[in-house]
């Protein structure tokens, strides 16, 4: 990659230039991401949507530095992303809680890796985020004693608590009941505006995408490409039941399904 062609947006937190990622699996070579160029601005809430298998999780892993690109480059600010770091926390699609730790210890795990905090501050912060996700009374429970939705909420608390600069979230709200989810939509927007974070979130729920995102990026599969980017200029905090939001969501859904049917025609 020629460094001269690497023009970054001045306030871009994450920049992807011609990123390609392939997997050599049992089913042959899959191009999970093909020539993706995208900027995530500092303090932006970017939402990725697209059909299953279009490379959303792969993109998050690359941004996290957990996997390496095959072609192209990814930067965080001016620094190339090569390895995972505390500044980019991932909340995975599966909850990934540690079964040898209880709820509180799981949330404390990331906090303990921040040397500038005292133990009391860590505890306070862990308890704050646990109560935010409504699990203050489950401090001592082990992951296997929690329901699927509870585990996902603990994972959410665990990724929010260390207060990372960039938060990468893979379908964080998919296993929650509607009430908790609505509450967390409000909370995450609150955290986002107050703490000035950069968030990249993956979802299958278009309405959720429009409710949370400053921009919604529509990806298409085989190979994974950016199809369309929607700017969502609604004032915050947004409510999921806002009619204006609903009409925008319908627009994105139409785009998604037209791409889907077109790609199916292509296959036929």
């Amino acid at each position: 990659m020629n460094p001269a062609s690497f023009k970054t947006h001045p306030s871009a937190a994450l920049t992807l230039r011609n990123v390609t990622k392939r997997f050599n699996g049992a089913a042959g070579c899959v191009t999970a991401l093909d020539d993706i160029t995208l900027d995530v601005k500092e303090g932006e809430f970017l939402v990725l949507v697209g059909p299953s298998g279009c490379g959303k999780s792969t993109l998050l892993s690359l941004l996290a530095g957990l996997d390496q690109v095959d072609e192209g480059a990814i930067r965080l600010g001016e620094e190339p992303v090569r390895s995972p770091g505390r500044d980019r926390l991932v909340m995975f699609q599966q909850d990934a809680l540690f079964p040898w730790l209880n709820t509180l210890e799981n949330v404390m795990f990331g906090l303990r890796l921040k040397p500038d905090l005292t133990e009391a501050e860590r505890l306070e912060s862990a308890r704050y985020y646990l109560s935010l996700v409504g699990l203050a009374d489950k401090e001592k429970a082990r992951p296997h004693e929690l329901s699927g939705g509870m585990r996902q909420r603990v994972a959410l608390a665990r990724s929010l608590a260390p207060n990372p600069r960039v938060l990468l979230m893979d379908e964080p709200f998919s296993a929650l009941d509607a009430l908790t989810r609505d509450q967390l939509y409000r909370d995450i927007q609150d955290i986002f505006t107050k703490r000035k974070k950069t968030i990249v979130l993956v979802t299958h729920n278009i309405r959720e995408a429009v409710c949370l995102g400053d921009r919604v990026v529509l990806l298409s599969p085989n190979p994974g490409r950016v199809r369309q980017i929607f700017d969502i200029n609604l004032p915050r905090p947004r409510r999921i039941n806002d009619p204006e939001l609903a009409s925008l969501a319908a627009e994105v859904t139409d785009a998604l399904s037209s791409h889907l049917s077109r790609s199916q025609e292509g296959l036929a």
Partner: protein
Amino acid sequence: MKLPRFVIPTLVAVTFLGGWEWFVRVGHVNDVLVPAPSQILHWFWDSLLNGELLSATWVTMRRLIIGFAIGAALGVPLGALCARVRWIRDTLGVLALGLQTLPSVCWVPLALLWFGQEESALLFVVVMGTIWAVVIAVQESVLNVQPLYLRAAMTMGSKGWHLWLRVILPAALPGVLSGMKQGWAFAWRSLMAAEIFVVILTGFGLGSLLHAGRELLRMDQVMGVMTVVVLVGLLADLIFFSPLERWLRRSRGL
């Protein structure tokens, strides 16, 4: 009506021992070759009173525990190293796999040559019995740690020693524990074999006691020691390994 669980085993044991006792008493078999349970119990009581049994058990247990501890303490880091470094896995890991299949009493001749008829010779045999099973178990369970745990930990900033001590080893713990249990069983067997074969001047263990029983044609002593060996093995499992395993299972919902 449901009988308590211990009733049937107790009945079977009493019938078996009673039948055995009767069989020997009426003279169907020579009681030099097959002593009656009462004779074994008698030996047991005598050697308990004169201190012989306790001191032999102590000598054996000390060898076993020290040897096992050394073997496990070396085996865990070596196994971790095998998992971490490819070429070490291809050399030491393969060697461990091979040596694990070698009955560790095969080490006795070498141990005697290297260390003489000393405690260290027996310790060496016990260490060889323990270490390879532990190395293999640690290597395998570290390699099988769910990548998702590692990825989650790394994005939270965990790496190096922190990753090993806080994530990889706890995640691998169930496998490591079952490797230790296997190592313990190997060590116990090899120690018995070595004690029976070799006279070690520095201590008279259970194996030596058994051997002496044979020389004196005291089958009550031989069978008594065998009983003690079985009991020690059972006890180690009952008070150490089983509770640990149960705790591990329960706390992780396995």
